[in-house]
């Protein structure tokens, strides 16, 4: 019998060393998250997965599961705070869901819908983020970057290429490509890389197949993200399918 904790009253088993979110995902329970991916070491930057453990805030992707812990996640208080974080991500970049070819497959959009985000709430920053269309197979639209570092981690830890990195600091933090020109075409990036298939939003876009799956039939058009216990794997499956 493995140890357990409770998530909103539901009993979740875990193995030694697992974090709260890892255990929840394995058990098919949903805690909203953006920078977490089950294939990678938890990072803890987006903070959308923040829960209350014994009454204290903690990022569930990095907080170790402990036997008997009482975890609160799907509460009006936590969801209100998450909503604010998601709104912050929207105003920090330039997100135009209606014209974005990732619409329906985007975790930011799906999470926002699920949390009941109906407006950006905060004043927009309108950053100037030019796109990089240099690569023959992949377009980089930095306007939608939420700085989750998944592509950085995938390229470094799986592809062993270090194609991406974060640069700058604070509100000027940005994603860069590993070449003297800064262009993706001048790196050794390939659309078959793991890094090409982990973007939860619409930064890394595969050319010529943007609308292979029509709007309305995409992952989160069919079911809200909270009803998909393993949404990350589903998106990955969709992407792998077409590449």
């Amino acid at each position, binding site marked *: 019998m493995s140890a357990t904790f409770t998530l909103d009253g539901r009993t979740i088993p875990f193995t030694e060393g697992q974090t709260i979110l890892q255990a929840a995902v394995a058990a098919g329970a949903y805690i909203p998250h953006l920078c977490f991916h089950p294939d990678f070491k938890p990072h803890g*930057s987006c903070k959308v997965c923040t829960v209350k453990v014994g009454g204290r805030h903690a990022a569930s992707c990095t907080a170790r599961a402990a036997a008997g812990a009482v975890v609160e996640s799907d509460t009006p208080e936590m969801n209100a705070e998450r909503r604010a974080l998601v709104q912050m991500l929207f105003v920090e970049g330039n997100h135009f869901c209606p014209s974005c070819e990732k619409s329906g497959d985007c975790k930011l959009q799906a999470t926002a819908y699920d949390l009941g985000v109906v407006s950006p709430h905060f004043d927009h920053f309108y950053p100037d983020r030019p796109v990089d269309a240099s690569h023959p197979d992949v377009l980089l639209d930095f306007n939608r970057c939420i700085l989750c570092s998944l592509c950085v981690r995938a390229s470094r830890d799986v592809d062993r290429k270090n194609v991406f990195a974060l640069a700058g600091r*604070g509100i000027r933090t940005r994603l860069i490509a*590993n070449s003297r020109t800064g262009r993706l075409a001048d790196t050794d990036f390939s659309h078959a890389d793991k890094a090409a298939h982990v973007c939860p939003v619409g930064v890394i876009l595969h050319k010529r197949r943007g609308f292979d799956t029509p709007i309305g039939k995409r992952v989160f058009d069919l079911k809200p993200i909270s009803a998909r216990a393993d949404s990350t794997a589903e998106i990955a499956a969709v992407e792998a399918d077409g590449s």
Partner: protein
Amino acid sequence: MPSPLLQAPAPAEAAATAMARHRHDPFELLQVLREVQEACGWIPPEAIDCIQARLALPRAKILGVATFYSFLHIKPCGRYRILFSDNITDRMLGSAALMDRMCRALWVERGKVSEDALVSVDTTSCTGLCDQGPALLVNGLAVGRLGERRVDDICELVRGKVPLGEWPAEFFRVEDNIRRRDVLLGASWRPGEALAAALARGPEALVEEMKASKLRGRGGAGFPAGLKWQACREAPGKTRYLVGNADEGEPGNFKDRVLLASSPDAVFEGMTLGAYATGARRGFLYLRGEYRFLLDRLEAVLARRRAAGLLGEAILGRKGFDFDVAIHVGAGAYVCGEESALIESLEGKRGTPRNRPPYPVTNGYLGQPTVVNNVETFAASCLVALKGGAWYAGLGTPESTGTKLVCVSGDCDRPGIYEYPFGVEVRQVLADCGARLTQAVQVSGPSGACVPAAEFGRRLAFEDLPTAGALMAFNAQRDMFEVARNFVHFFAHESCGFCTPCRVGTSLLTNMMDKLANGHGSPYDFAEIERMNLLLQNMSHCGLGHSACNPVLGTIAKFRPAYERRLAHEAFEPAFDLDRALASARQMTGRDDPAAHVQPEMDETA
């Protein structure tokens, strides 16, 4: 002294020299970049080519590091790079007007490089010269006591392209301003004496004395130093490291500067004691970039101590007791004062705080057990070694033993360093420094507490007002809203950008405070500010985000009228101001006549 830049070396040569000096160790990336910056005035792409090839690092990683630190530049920023310290104390002494004066005289816009690529002028976070401000950095070197005359002189020197080495030495003189000495600054003992006392006792006994002294961390958090040393000593690991934290970026703090200038032997001897107690063989002094001017002096002290057998192999003749200290110079990042971010920075990375646990004491530098203590903590440990833990525990208060270096600045006659036993009342400090009609003091800097006059009976101690040292006094003329706004700007500038709430939230908070300052505030904005503060406190990754709201929460609680004055409108107003937005158009056309301004709409009821 940094290169005067009359003849900058070729980028490749500068990179090769810097890498050789650091044994081509990729973990020394930040030091290599800093030295290239110093030699060339920026980090040219050709230098990055060499570093990329020789250290076998991805270019994007090098750029990621180079763009994280404020004092590193991957674009030319002028042969003279002038940065005005932008702490509230500098502002109170007129720094904004002085910077405008310099910009006008040098025909340069703030934040931009002059057309002839000669000079750039901008602001930077507090440079730690609050007791002798307003201050600036020129090519990384501190200049204090600015006035119109000195600013004009600097403009002349810049225009004349005079190398920094030929500038008047008086400009670069930094005073210690020690106003009150107690057991630490007043001690007179010979270098090596504390070590000899420790060697006579043995390492276990030294740890016991440290625990008995109840000496707590002087960086502000107050963790018992003896317990930290013991935990590191007992942690499993191949090797152990020790770090002296002199990255005092908290605005208003300057005690590390004075301690390193006046008692460097106490700091290094304390670090050597820590090495003896924990078994560490390598130590680092993390010196904030703003204190670059201390580097050569500190290297000389280290050399002297090596020659005297107080550092290096077989210290004081004790076989197997080997320890040495390398100085790591920061490059403008407040967040690196946080111990796990500091370790990332030591490893040549962006200064992003790590997920904790595990803590540095088990998983620190290169994943090994590491003690990070403030330099004042190390200096105080010498007194424990010399006089015993029980003696030390008798000083101060039962919960906050010993003495504290307090950095007094702001509205007072005698700013400087005051060493007091813990437990001193704020009132006493204010009387000693000649502060009058004080309405509030900010204790421990922006992340600390705002204390109004009614609470001047409170004590500087971990159990009442914990402090890293700063005490900024504000007289009745000062606007506490502007104080908080300055601090909020500071946190936004220093946010590392890792987590969403701090990266975006500190900038949103800045915009909200600016909106109030610009006269567009309403009760709605006030509620938004309070909501944002809560979010930062609850959701942020590290102490920077958690405390970014402290100045606002503190002043709202204690000086609410300063905010209410700003709520000019009853109903919500957008922050957007058409007339302000047209400023750049006015500037481009060189117009400022009434017709170039948007007239406010006529009030129909008038």
